[in-house]
């Protein structure tokens, strides 16, 4: 379980961000309020990814498998960061 949490944490954050943003758009609407909510959520999730990055870097791997796990997880965090970042754009650039 721990391995999967480490490998997927960034992507899970992305999924949370995406689906919450989608549900806000689909079920609440696109007025100013929801827009700001999406932007806030984006900042929160980006901060979350950054925090996870710091946490992962501070972990001391014991063997090859752990080292591999850590570097792959950092990679998924990088992709998740970009994806969440982009996901915030619609709230910013679609006035």
């Amino acid at each position, binding site marked *: 379980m721990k*391995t999967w949490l480490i490998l997927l944490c960034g992507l899970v954050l*992305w999924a949370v961000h995406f689906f919450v*943003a*989608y549900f806000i758009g689909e079920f609440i609407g696109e007025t100013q309020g929801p827009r700001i909510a999406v932007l806030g959520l984006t900042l929160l999730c980006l901060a979350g990814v950054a925090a996870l990055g710091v946490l992962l870097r501070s972990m001391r791997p014991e063997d090859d498998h752990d080292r*591999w*796990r850590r570097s792959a997880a950092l990679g*998924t965090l990088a992709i998740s960061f970009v*994806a969440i970042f982009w*996901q915030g754009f*619609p709230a910013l650039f679609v006035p």
Partner: protein
Amino acid sequence: MTSETGFDPALYARLPVEGPRPEGEEEKLCRAWSAPKGWQHLTEVNNQYIGIYYVGTAFLFFILAGILALLMRVQLAAPLLDVLPQDTYNQVFTMHGTVMMFLFAVPAVEAVAVLLLPQMLGARDLPFPRLSAYAFWAYAIGGLCFFASLFVGLAPDGGWFMYPPLTSKAFSPGINVDFWLLGIGFIEISAIAGAIEIIVGVMRTRAPGMSLDKMPIFAWALLVFAVMIIIAFPAVILSTLLLEAERALNWPIFDVGRGGDPVLWQHLFWFFGHPEVYIIFLPAAGMMSMIIPTVARTELVGYRMIVLAMLATGFLSFGVWAHHMFTTGMPPMTTGFFSAASMAVSVPAGIQVFSWIATYATGKPRFNAPGLFTMGAVIVFVTGGLTGVMVALVPFDWQVHDTYFIVAHLHYVLIGGMVFPLFAAFYYWIPMSSAWPLSERLAKWVFTLMFAGINIAFMPMHFAGLMGMPRRVYTYLPEHGWALPNLISTIGAFMFAAGVLLFVIDLARNFRPRPGGGSAGNVYGAGTLEWLPSDLYGSRSIPVVASREPLWDDPALAQNAERGGYFLPGSVTGYRESLVTSPIRAEPQYLQVLPGRTASPFAAALFTAGFFLALTVQAYTFSIASAILALMALLRWLWETDRHVPLDNVDIGGGIMVPANVTGPMSHGWWATITLLIVIGMIFSMALFGNAFLWSNQPAFWSQPPAILPAFPVLGLNLAAVALSLGARWILRRQRQGWASAALIGATALATGALVLEHSLWRAAGFDPEMSAQAALAYTLQALQMFILVVAVLMSFNIWARVLRGLVTAPTNTSVDVAALFIAYCGAQGFVGSLFPRLLGVS
């Protein structure tokens, strides 16, 4: 070195065991894994047979759907031709898409998985061989009958996406659409069965030492693939159920006149439909990542990046479904989320492409048949990927959506991302199961024709699309100037077909299937376990894996494995058996006894297919008879599971002892049940989404749902069911088998009572399923609950019967674990299913 299960990895040093093997060991192994004769081929469950049948059938559907494509290309070669009349054309294009997606692409990769995965992982077979056999037979029988509907003019004609209301009873009164809904629904079951098999197989049957970071990349790809199927396919299962309910029972889920919404179908369909593209692409990318290192004679560059790219694809692809719906009038910010996710998902694809290029650059690439196809695949796939980024831009998509530009885009992606890799895989792995490899000389021709063919066929379609040619048109008027690009496309299509034909000829000349030996062997000099010398049982012994390319890093490995120096060199129990290992670090956990030949999967598949087909043509008596026979076959199958082995600990090699009987969260049965529950849970969640969607989109038709307070008994009964069924495991621990089975039956009864009460509450509140989509969806939740409760009843009485026959071991037992888990889930689903629709009040 850390350990996951308490197993000491230092024990691996004992292997390989030197010295001669005991007398009769190999004979015992061969006896357990004997080859089928005559009719036994229908009852064989060994993956080496099922895998070959499976790949062959999928390829047959590729050819059939390809022939349909050629017919369409002939019709469109010039304006206003009359080769295919309008209604025939509409059936043909629907079938081309449907067959390629559902009967070729997904089954083909599952087929390759069934054939290759055990060998690649060093397992004797997948953990549920009968499930693979069932999945195959269901698919083959169902698929062929489905295809045959074309010959009687009853093939579906609503497009592979089947949008209502065109596919509703009002506009498609014939049974054509029912063929699609029931046929595809049935084939999905087969795909999901295969996916469960693959997940548990990859997680639990890897050779000892094959930790996640040493897993062949194809196994990674299939793991992500199978998890995606588990999450995505329930959406299409639910949507086909809903549409069939609308057609057969007049439940107006997509009917705007009674509060339904056709856009709900689009959400559900594309929630499956877009991940589907990555579901198809990922395994093929996994094949590419296996083949390219061998072709380039070096290890894969960026292994971990490919893994993370696949994981990222698995997630991101679930955020892109509505990019098929940019023109439905979705509000701009929401389209933006999907546009952003569609951009994001191209990043992992880019990582994989550059990993392949880096691998070529590191090694010394050979231009043999698999090499050529992988190189061609890179170019074609990148072209399709670039147009994919273009259509992710909402304003550009507004123009090219539903035009031939999209037809060009998707064929570049699917041919570059799936068909070319699959052909590379055919050339690469055929020597593993055939006495001879395919001809390298002909391969050059096959590749040239196919590569030129795809570009000549599909490049002009970009232009036709830009010129305004919509998709799914059976003809076009000369005045638009679409004649020239269409004529060129037709020529290209026939070149592609000529390439495939040449391949088929080569296949007929050189392919001599040899399950288990007598094969051409490792002709390309690959480094992974599937190239170990093998027989029907796979490798003679299961090696310890210390690297990603064990055959390259330990030249003596093949010889030592063949000699029987590693794990399980014989059969301890005399049955077929395999080793179950831990999910992360693949430490040996227990010995699994595999089932041998049995007719029940074939019979179950045959009668399930009979059930669905008879339902389609409204032969209800025959349908019910088939259902009963299918059920009997399934029960017989169920009865044979969970055999107790009268051994506690067995020596699997080098004096390493593992148990032969394991229950609870460690067992593979538990894992499969969890996976199955995720599938059911996804179907259920999608139905909840449908509820919320209609509540938000059709408020004018929404009535106040029944109150929550009167539903408290329903909620309470369901919670009690959860507690009681989980309690059954606790009771069993006290050696009281009878009481445990009684608890399970009781829990089922409580949940059933809750459902009956729930139903009467909705009835009492005046809701009728034909009245409104809201009511229809509420009753859909109850119908889903009823369906799983029927299964729960069967399970709990099965436990009771097993108790009576003394088959239930105490203090723990896998059958009881599985049933308890399932029935507890039923209670939980009943709870949520009762609460949720009541929360969606009139605002």
